[in-house]
């Protein structure tokens, strides 16, 4: 029901949506599309040739990426297509993260758009000429620093979402599987305001955060509080959140389609600080995330409400007995957690200049990993865990194919549970 309401809100401005996309393929009954957005951390990559072919039908068609990095090819029928990026057309500043992942095979059907994204990295050593140099696995200090910076960026944004997840777990005991969709919501709302409504970007992000927080309030009023009143078990609550997650992610896909949407009206410039080169929105996102995280820490540490929140995490029965209004605090935690997740989604969308229906879906397990790593239910643990996970995820691409970067983080999660189940900051007595 919540999903429907949100879709309704967004749907008002639906029609003008796709006008800003620079590509020219519209899926209809006879044709389908294969397309995507080519970008690396410095922004979109223009002028790269991508060829879509299918041996059986002797079909071959090429496209060149536009100024905003988008490309698309119309295809005649349902088949498995080979999508190949011509590495010689890549500019000197971009390189494939893993040459083995090119070409890509993609099943495409008529009447739908399929997305193929190539993983591009910033080529930090353009002087050596051939773009293949970055894929051979030579780890230079420059690349090390660059990936570390990317890791901190991802870790800070991840922390915004993970702290909320941890607060919800701490106060209600529930593992909220729909928290990933809260991140997606923030990103997509930013897209709606910034691109569809042409609002200034700062205002767009603010509006996205406010609406995200409102969705948390709505959820607690409409779903979670009634279920708490009925004393529904934690396992059931978790499954309800899984259902909500499914409903929301498909609602996003229903409304926004399967492709990645740009959230910035124009291409952002990059800045270099020493060997590190990131897009300007990335720096801004990192700054915002840091400020907000410090704010949350101060709130938990210094304010009465913050201390009450921590008291509930420690011992709900005792907190209730000492006169804390547990229900009110939990309501506040939901608003705060979804607001933070929305901000995380908005900042993620800015940093990558892209929002998609599965943005948060990919992030959810990393949030769990971060929260578990730091210690379930401890907000500071979630922060530290997020930074570690972020750095590990990005740095792993120095040695492993980037398609495995999330797998590495999840492997760490499992190993942590093996060795230190209570996490870094968790207390041993709570487990078992």
């Amino acid at each position, binding site marked *: 029901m919540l999903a429907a309401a949100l879709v309704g809100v967004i749907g008002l401005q639906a029609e003008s949506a796709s006008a800003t996309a620079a590509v020219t393929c519209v899926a209809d009954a006879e044709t389908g599309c294969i397309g995507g957005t080519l970008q690396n951390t410095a922004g979109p990559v223009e002028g790269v040739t991508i060829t879509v072919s299918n041996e059986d039908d002797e079909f071959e068609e090429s496209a060149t990426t536009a100024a905003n990095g988008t490309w698309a090819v119309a295809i005649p029928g349902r088949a498995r297509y080979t999508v190949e990026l011509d590495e010689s057309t890549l500019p000197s500043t971009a390189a494939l993260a893993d040459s083995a992942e090119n070409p890509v095979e993609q099943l495409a059907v008529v009447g739908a758009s399929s997305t193929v994204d190539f993983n591009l990295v910033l080529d930090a050593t353009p002087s050596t000429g051939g773009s293949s140099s970055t894929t051979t696995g030579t780890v230079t200090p420059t690349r090390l620093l660059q990936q570390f910076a990317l890791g901190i960026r991802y870790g800070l944004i991840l922390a915004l979402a993970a702290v909320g997840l941890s607060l919800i777990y701490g106060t209600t005991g529930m593992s909220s599987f729909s928290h990933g969709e809260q991140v997606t919501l923030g990103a997509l709302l930013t897209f709606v305001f910034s691109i569809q409504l042409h609002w200034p970007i700062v205002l767009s992000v603010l509006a996205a955060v406010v609406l995200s927080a409102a969705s948390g309030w709505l959820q607690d009023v409409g779903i979670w509080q009634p279920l708490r009143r009925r004393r*529904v078990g934690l396992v059931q609550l978790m499954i309800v959140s899984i259902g909500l997650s499914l409903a929301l992610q498909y609602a996003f896909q229903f409304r926004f389609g399967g492709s990645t949407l740009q959230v910035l009206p124009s291409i952002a410039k990059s800045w270099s600080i020493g060997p590190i080169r990131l897009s300007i929105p990335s720096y801004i996102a990192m700054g915002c995330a840091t400020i907000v995280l410090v704010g949350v820490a101060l709130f938990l540490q210094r304010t009465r409400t913050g201390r009450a929140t921590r008291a509930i995490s420690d011992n709900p029965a005792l907190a209730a007995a000492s006169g804390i209004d547990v229900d009110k605090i939990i309501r506040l935690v939901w608003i705060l957690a979804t607001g933070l997740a929305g901000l995380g989604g908005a900042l993620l969308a800015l940093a990558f200049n892209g929002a998609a229906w599965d943005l948060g879906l990919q992030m959810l397990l990393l949030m769990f990993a971060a929260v578990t790593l730091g210690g379930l239910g401890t907000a500071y643990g979630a922060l530290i865990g997020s930074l570690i996970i972020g750095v590990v995820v990005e740095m792993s691409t120095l040695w492993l194919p980037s398609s495995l970067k999330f797998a590495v983080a*999840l492997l760490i999660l*499992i190993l942590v549970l093996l060795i230190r189940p209570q996490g870094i900051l968790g207390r041993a007595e709570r487990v078992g």
Partner: protein
Amino acid sequence: MNWSDLLSLTAGELIAPTTAAYALAAIGLNIHFGFTGLLNMGQAGFMLVGAYGFAATAQAGQGFPLSALVGVGCSVVFALILGIPTLKLRGDYLAIVTISAAEIVRLIGRSSVLSDITNGAAGIPASRFNKDFLGLSVLPDGRTALGPFAYANNVGDGWWTRIVAWAAVLLAVLLVWRLMSSPWGRVLKGIREDEDAVRSLGKSVYGYKMQALVLGGAMAGFAGVLFVMPASVQPDAMGRSMTFFIWTILLLGGAATLWGPVIGSMIFFVALMFIKTVMRDVLPSVLRPEQLEPLAGILVGITLMLLVIFRPQGIFGDKKELMLDVR
């Protein structure tokens, strides 16, 4: 709208290999969650591991029986690897570990690192591994029509696959019936209710949980083999959504019941096909074709929520034996 088309399409789902595969996976999940209280959130991972093990062996030229055994064996090993560290910990740790491990398998499967075996994100087409299986068929070549069901006999999506798949489902139901009416099943149910109580009565709770995890995982492994038989091993088709669909099926039919997973799977796929077909015919002006799948997904999500909130015992479950808090 063409009513006979609608009827045959939806009726077809009733006995489709996919329905059987999901039913078998849900039977496995029922052993985990319904009878033992284990929160396995990675059932699709067990299926994918089984499917890869099977397809890799069959691709290498081995016969179906050995390949299927290898597939199931892979799932068993997967269960042991996941169970050894987590079954001594609190229940939600198993949930997080299984969902993560399933995701790791999918990510590795679709990446380029093992593409000799997995063929990356493109997946392994069925033609590379189902020849021996179809060769075992006792049916003559050709087509058979039974009422609304008309299929070729010996193709991946044909009668032979259906017969084997549903035979496996029946066998699994029989096995669950035998086990759950035995003292062994009684211990599992005891663990579901309260681990410490069972421990205090001298049972090795860890051992029983491991046996349950392995058995349900093995069933999922074979379900994976059945699932890929008609089409291909597609890692992205066997991700988290699949796990959650299996959960919906189990809760739809009723956890801890004998036939719940089977009936749940039938209802699930018939309803889904019915809704999609009707929507496609009735709402072409409102819906774009690529919006059909997401719409079905939204409905599944909402169904799952409503089921857990209002009918935790499932459509046919016993009200008295409804799923309470398993923590």
